[in-house]
């Protein structure tokens, strides 16, 4: 399963604790440039914890996280964000009282709004719905629109690596499909590397170059998206009755 591309992000032996409780028990993972990597797993497996650990909140107690050859394990979150990693956090976390436009500005603040106008146009073509709602408060958007905004906001920083935490959470199937189409498009057209944490295993694995399965704070399986989709164990645990 090695590819010819260089690993953009490497996670080696990462252990994360919440107080005394261990959430990640030594995770190894790679994300290569240009890939879409999906992490699936049940509730409480530690998927979001891994994503947040990459972002330095909470920090890993053991192990190393390397991004473009640089050790970012102990780096403060805001500095990690400045390296070209963007995140659309779980539960969307848009700024509800600020307008959509201002939310997007916040996304571009890492690079001082250098390409703001261009990028605004771009995300507006990707998400025409947002264009209609630019002057609206983000808190007044529907769940799907807020998710679009969260992704758009992350894209505004022109990230090399985009971390998406459960973008399909609580959304109607048709919106889920739209969101996944966008992820594919962003990956293909802008060569943005995507690391996707999902419970919606069927859609996520279909989209993914490679995938990992996490159980109880450990990676138990890995492989190409197609291979995992076909795997009987994955099928039984995550896909039964799933594929809409």
């Amino acid at each position: 399963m090695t590819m010819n591309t260089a690993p953009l992000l490497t996670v080696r032996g990462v252990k994360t604790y919440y107080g005394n409780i261990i959430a990640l028990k030594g995770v190894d993972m790679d994300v290569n440039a240009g890939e879409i990597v999906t992490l699936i797993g049940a509730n409480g497996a530690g998927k979001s914890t891994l994503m947040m650990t990459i972002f330095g909140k909470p920090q890993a107690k053991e192990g190393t996280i390397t991004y473009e050859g640089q050790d970012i394990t102990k780096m403060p979150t805001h500095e990690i964000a400045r390296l070209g990693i963007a995140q659309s956090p779980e539960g969307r976390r848009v700024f509800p009282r600020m307008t959509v436009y201002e939310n997007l500005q916040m996304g571009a603040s890492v690079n001082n709004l250098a390409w703001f106008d261009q990028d605004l146009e771009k995300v507006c073509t990707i998400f025409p719905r947002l264009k209609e709602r630019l002057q609206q408060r983000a808190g007044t958007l529907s769940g799907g629109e807020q998710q679009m905004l969260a992704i758009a906001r992350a894209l505004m920083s022109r990230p090399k690596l985009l971390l998406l935490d459960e973008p399909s959470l609580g959304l109607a199937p048709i919106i889920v499909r739209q969101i996944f189409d966008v992820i594919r498009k962003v990956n293909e057209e802008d060569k943005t590397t995507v690391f996707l944490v999902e419970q919606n295993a069927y859609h996520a694995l279909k989209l993914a170059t490679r995938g990992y399965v996490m159980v109880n704070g450990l990676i138990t399986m890995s492989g190409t998206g197609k291979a995992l989709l076909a795997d009987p164990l994955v099928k039984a645990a995550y896909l039964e009755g799933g594929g809409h």
Partner: protein
Amino acid sequence: MERTEKPVINWGQLFKDGVFAAIVAFGLFALMLGFKTDQTLNNEMVLVPRPMLLWSVVGLVFLARIAIGYWQASREGRIAPPKKATALWMLKAEKYGLPMVIGFLVAYPMFVLLTAGPQGAIKWIDNFGIQILIYIMLGWGLNIVVGLAGLLDLGYVAFYAVGAYSYALFATSEPIKDFLAQLIGEGFWQAWAFWICLPVAGILAAFWGVMLGFPVLRLRGDYLAIVTLAFGEIIRLVLINWVDFSNGYAGISSIPRPSFFGVPFNATDEGFSAKFGLEFSPIYRTIFLFYVILALALLTAAVSMRLRRLPVGRAWEALREDEIACRSLGINTVNTKLTAFAIGAMFGGFAGAFFAARQGFISPESFVFLESAQILAIVVLGGMGSLLGVVIASILLVGGVELLRELDFLKLYFGDGFDPAQYRMLIFGICMVLMMLWKPRGLISAREPTVFLKEKKIVSADHVKEGHG
């Protein structure tokens, strides 16, 4: 939607409710308000009956109960009409209101001087004008911390105190005075102390803002409020107990008053009146002080408006909304919070220095928690983040209390010992309760977007859930 049928109002029931409420009120207030214990010249305690007061309160309760009942009945079965675009006038108010307010403020002393004459004008400029402007400035300063950055600060008065004491201590310091007398000339410090100490007071207050900011950075909401509250009290208690430093309860007196850029306001030949060929009158100093605090307040407003359009201002607002999201967008939340604290504190310090200069005397009594509460009330009442709202709230709260002193005619009605100013906290509380019922997001709750595409549209708070809008 049309109202389907006219609500039926049962007047008999309303009347019954009213009578019942009045009876309860009578039971409650008969002893509390109906009688007052008093001392005669022989030190005997006598009961003074106050039937007028008692009956008017009972009457008020009766009428109020009926009014509430009527209001409730008239709403029953009614479908709430769709929200009108009330927000538009608010945008207009923000746009035209502020220049109008500023114009009025600039003209205010002249207007008062013309209508009330030099003797009457001092009271109106000092008690109303300057007093309200100090609170407007404090409100605008606190607005940066609470309204923009969303950090609930219950100890803002601490920075006010730091500013006031910085100025008072520096200006009355003998070593500095002697040193400058040798270096530049006698009387220099007396004349220029205010203008030199004003920035120093601001910087010191900002420094203390950072000092407070560092340990409390991890805290939010209630916990932050408690710590800032404690900080405010600590500063006050230090000022009381460290007598060598601050002269304790006795306070600091004979603080030099501000000069007209070196020209003192006194009756001598070197004084302001003599230099400008005017007849000596204390009114000139008052008018000058008015313009100084007006300038300081406008500076605060200008800075906070400008900052809101800069990345740091937007980062403050984003921080208020969601700290985690902020961090993951590459914003250094530590620095962002510290700048908010420091800048807010700096304006508190300016206001404090001005306060000390205006009073000529300060003591820890002026920096009690109630002051913090009042400033915070002004910000909340005005609508978090709204500059014009702060102005309106200051006028209502501070000016309203001052106006209470003017209501002498009430004595005819309630008896000679009645002092309306004593009821200020009661009225204050009632106002707050009413406000929170009718306009839970403050007087001016809509927020003007800092950036816009083709046209400015108001961002109404109506659709955002409570606590978010």
